[in-house]
């Protein structure tokens, strides 16, 4: 392992690693635009230039010292780029000296020559690398007094990505992403010099299912999302860590929230799961159901009511039937906490053996990269916790047969829209009551006798177990009447300080609750005190009940970015987490 010295700090760098990677190991980030750890090195932005030297050696090969006993360093005749220079034993690297700084100032001045002063209208402003470095690594002066180049400002690269050629600094990250990660080599540089711009090849468009990742990795605001464009400034949103519930991959995400509404979803680095990427479907489909078409109050037979009377009504309905006539359809969309509460509810309160969940498989959705056939985020959690009577029977047809066979009269369905499922259409006529714990309005609401509004994944603490049996933590981003007084709910300045008469803080706070909370409230109607005050309490019971979960806690799940089932005592080593945007506002 080559030993190098970075800014006077001795580092054991991995053989073959580059200077920028070695610096990252000691939590030093060299300024860079074109380098991205997930992509190949292109070395064209020159921002990571550093001063590299070696100790001067005498005839005998021993390093020479000056009068005061310091090693005499033979600095290189030119600076070297940190992203493409492999480390060598004895290398001395200066990332902050006058020479390096002078080069950084020069590069910044050069890159800003044709960059328009678009920051006020640019979606990237506030998390822009160019802005950040113009502030930290530039002398703030330009000698360029001529007319700036003008290029096309609204070029459609694909159905979801818009390109602003003026803002582009030609780092080629998007081109390399399209070639190497999205495997759709549709983008290329055309022209030369200051006329250089990015285009799709004639007759092609950049419509890869991963195309929107280029928006995140673009170090400036040249690539913008057509879905989000101009919706909010970066600093107006709060960003909460979450997990994408779109499929069983469990990509780590951040939810950008303003006024109690998710405005955008972007990937969060987790080297064990999704690395730096996520699919466009996850970004575009996983927020509208949180924002719109929600059930915000409990209903009895289609009429609004309050929680108290709804829970009493549920108790009355359940009391009126034998436990063998009651079926519980759980949900693999729910968190492990919800599933555990469902199982406990079935075993201890209703005492029914009819408990199942539905599989949601969509082979058309899957691909080789991140997208999985299984569209539920917690299928493995449901299996691990035992949300079934017989395993491998989670098909709608089999459950429908059971309903008919056991002449089920009451169905408690947790989020599953069974009324719209063709398999259930014939059997539901004989069912007398459907108790529906649902977040969104759908067909089952119309036939359900009691509807209890449940919170979505964006409003609860909880854990999902993904396809690789990795348990990952989700945090609430949206305030409901149940969670609005949580400590640590991330809120932007406007959301935090808005008053009742401010029009900008009138986002609806729904009267929904997490599933585990609803089920323990029904248990209380039976006189059973579960004593759960938070999702963490429920998770602690999961951990103590199931050996697979032993050793897990929310703190550890957050620290290690998820833990593998049955492996919590020996977590994988933590890796350096690289985020493309570092200037997320912390308020």
């Amino acid at each position: 392992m080559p030993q190098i010295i970075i800014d006077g700090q001795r580092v054991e760098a991995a053989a073959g690693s580059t200077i920028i990677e070695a610096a990252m190991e000691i939590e030093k980030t060299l300024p860079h635009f074109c380098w991205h750890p997930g992509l190949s090195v292109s070395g064209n932005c020159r921002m990571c230039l550093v001063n590299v030297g070696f100790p001067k050696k005498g005839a005998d090969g021993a390093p020479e010292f000056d009068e005061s006993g310091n090693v005499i360093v033979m600095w290189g005749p030119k600076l070297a780029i940190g992203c493409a220079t492999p480390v060598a034993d004895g290398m001395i690297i200066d990332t902050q000296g006058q020479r390096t700084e002078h080069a950084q100032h020069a590069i910044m001045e050069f890159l800003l020559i044709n960059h328009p002063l678009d920051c006020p209208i640019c979606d990237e402003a506030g998390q822009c690398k160019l802005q950040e470095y113009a502030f930290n690594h530039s002398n703030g002066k330009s000698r360029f007094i001529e007319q700036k180049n003008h290029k096309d400002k609204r070029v459609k690269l694909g159905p979801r990505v818009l390109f602003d050629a003026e803002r582009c600094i030609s780092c080629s990250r998007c081109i390399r992403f399209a070639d190497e990660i999205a495997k759709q080599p549709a983008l290329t540089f055309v022209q030369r010099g200051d006329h250089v711009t990015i285009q799709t090849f004639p007759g092609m468009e950049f419509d890869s299912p991963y195309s929107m990742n280029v928006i995140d990795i673009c170090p400036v605001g040249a690539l913008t999302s057509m879905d989000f464009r101009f919706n909010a400034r970066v600093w107006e949103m709060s960003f909460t860590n979450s997990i994408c519930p779109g499929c069983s991959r469990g990509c780590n995400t951040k939810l950008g929230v303003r006024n109690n509404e998710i405005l955008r979803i972007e990937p969060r680095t987790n080297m064990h799961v999704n690395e730096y990427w996520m699919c466009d479907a996850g970004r575009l489909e996983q927020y509208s159901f949180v924002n719109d078409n929600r059930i915000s109050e409990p209903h009895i037979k289609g009429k609004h009511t309050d929680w108290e009377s709804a829970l009493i009504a549920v108790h009355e309905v359940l009391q009126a039937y034998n436990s063998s006539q009651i079926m519980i359809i759980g949900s693999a969309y729910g968190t492990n906490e919800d599933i555990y509460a469902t199982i406990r509810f079935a075993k201890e309160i209703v005492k029914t053996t009819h408990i199942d969940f539905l599989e949601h498989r969509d082979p058309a959705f899957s691909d080789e990269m991140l997208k999985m056939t299984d569209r539920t985020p917690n299928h493995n959690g449901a299996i691990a916790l035992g949300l079934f009577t017989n395993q491998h029977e989670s098909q709608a047809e089999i459950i429908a047969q059971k309903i008919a066979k056991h002449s089920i009269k009451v169905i408690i369905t947790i989020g599953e829209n069974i009324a719209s499922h063709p398999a259930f259409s014939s059997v539901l006529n004989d069912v007398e009551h459907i108790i529906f714990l649902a977040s969104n309005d759908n067909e089952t609401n119309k036939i359900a006798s009691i509807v209890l509004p449940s919170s979505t994944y964006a409003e609860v603490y909880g854990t999902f177990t993904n396809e690789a049996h990795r348990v990952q933590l989700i945090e609430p981003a949206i305030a409901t009447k149940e969670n609005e007084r949580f400590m640590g709910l991330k809120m932007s300045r406007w959301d935090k300080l808005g008053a009742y008469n401010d029009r900008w803080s009138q986002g609806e706070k729904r009267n929904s609750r997490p599933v585990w909370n609803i089920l323990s409230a029904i248990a209380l109607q039976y006189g059973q005190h579960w004593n759960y005050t938070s999702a963490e309490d429920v998770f602690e019971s999961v951990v103590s009940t199931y050996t697979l979960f032993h050793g897990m806690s929310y703190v550890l799940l957050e620290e290690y970015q998820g833990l593998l089932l049955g492996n919590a005592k020996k977590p994988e080593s933590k890796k350096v987490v690289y985020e493309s945007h570092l200037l997320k506002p912390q308020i």
Partner: protein
Amino acid sequence: MNIKKNTELERMSFWEKIYLPEIARGLSLTFKQMFEPTFTRQYPEERWIPTGSYRGRPVLVLEEDGERCVACGLCSRVCPALAIEVQAGETDNVKERYPAKFEINMLRCIYCGFCEEVCPEEAIIMSKDYELVFTSQEEAILGKDKLLIPIAQLQDRLEFLRQYK
């Protein structure tokens, strides 16, 4: 009783005790003021027109081809009282961004002028308007219809900013 007396009455001299010279001095000031020039205005018949340096109600500059504002939201960010709400929208014009919604809550505004200072487009400036009357909280939230003022009426302030900003 060993109390040392030092009352006001004991300390005053004879002329101070009878008050008359002081009354005469006070009245002389009153009579003098009668012949001084008056500063009182007969508002509202007589209205004061402030100079360009006056910080009245913040307004948006309206040019011939529409508003200057690009809805960057910096005024909203810098506003210490959180009075400003901006929602951007997209147009097909060369200037691709415009404020779809721009509201200033005049009950929150403290007339500090930070919004004017931070504005990169000189689009929000402080006007001379100081006569603000509202009969409800809703009415105090001014939308684009009330905020946009033609640039011709704002020349004094723009000239002031050109000189001193």
